């Protein structure tokens, strides 16, 4: 599951437009408090879907799904993602 986290971090680096470096954020840190906007969340969602070949169901399209790296990882787990896409 570590590689999934790496991919999530890569997506956030490319699309999250965060105000701090990903290297300074733990998996539990609040992404919205660190600059993630609603619009950036859309890009993160689409990029994660591309990376893992999944589609977020409506039930997961809540702010809480995108509030941390851990929450995104758990959302992917609930969609059956267990291994990195590469």
């Amino acid at each position, binding site marked *: 599951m570590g590689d999934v986290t790496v991919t999530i971090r890569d997506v956030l680096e490319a699309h999250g437009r965060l105000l701090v470096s990903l290297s300074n954020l733990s998996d539990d840190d609040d992404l919205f408090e660190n600059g993630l906007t*609603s619009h950036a*969340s859309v890009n993160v969602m689409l990029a994660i879907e591309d990376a893992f070949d999944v589609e977020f169901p409506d039930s997961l*399209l*809540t702010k809480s799904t995108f509030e941390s790296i851990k929450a995104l990882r758990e959302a992917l787990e609930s969609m059956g993602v267990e291994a990195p896409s590469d």
Partner: protein
Amino acid sequence: MSILVGIDVQAIDEVEASIKEFGARYTHRLFTDDEIASCGDGPGAASGFAGRFAAKEAVLKILESNEIGPRWKSIEVRRSLGGRPEVALHGAAAEIARSQGIEEIFLSISLGGGIASATVIAQVTQGRIGARQWAT
């Protein structure tokens, strides 16, 4: 009667970049078919989408919900015959508006300096279920 106010801004270049990278997956996830048709695919499309996204986010603020997905398309920006932007709510967004006694939402969108901004003002009649604008 009380009033609720919501405001949001969206950088137009961010929307342009999203359209360039994700194309129709981006637009169809956020906007209704009518909104997509209204914005077109010309040089002003990103401005149109940015204004509509800001409007949807401004409405979400007055609806007081932490959901960020399914209701993007249930909040629709339309143009009146006179050209004034209007908000039409559907599905879950309409239900929430009804439950909160929101009778009507007034919208203004402005573009400039690379930014789209939207302001919404909602008229709330406490204790009364509004059905005028949110029929479906």
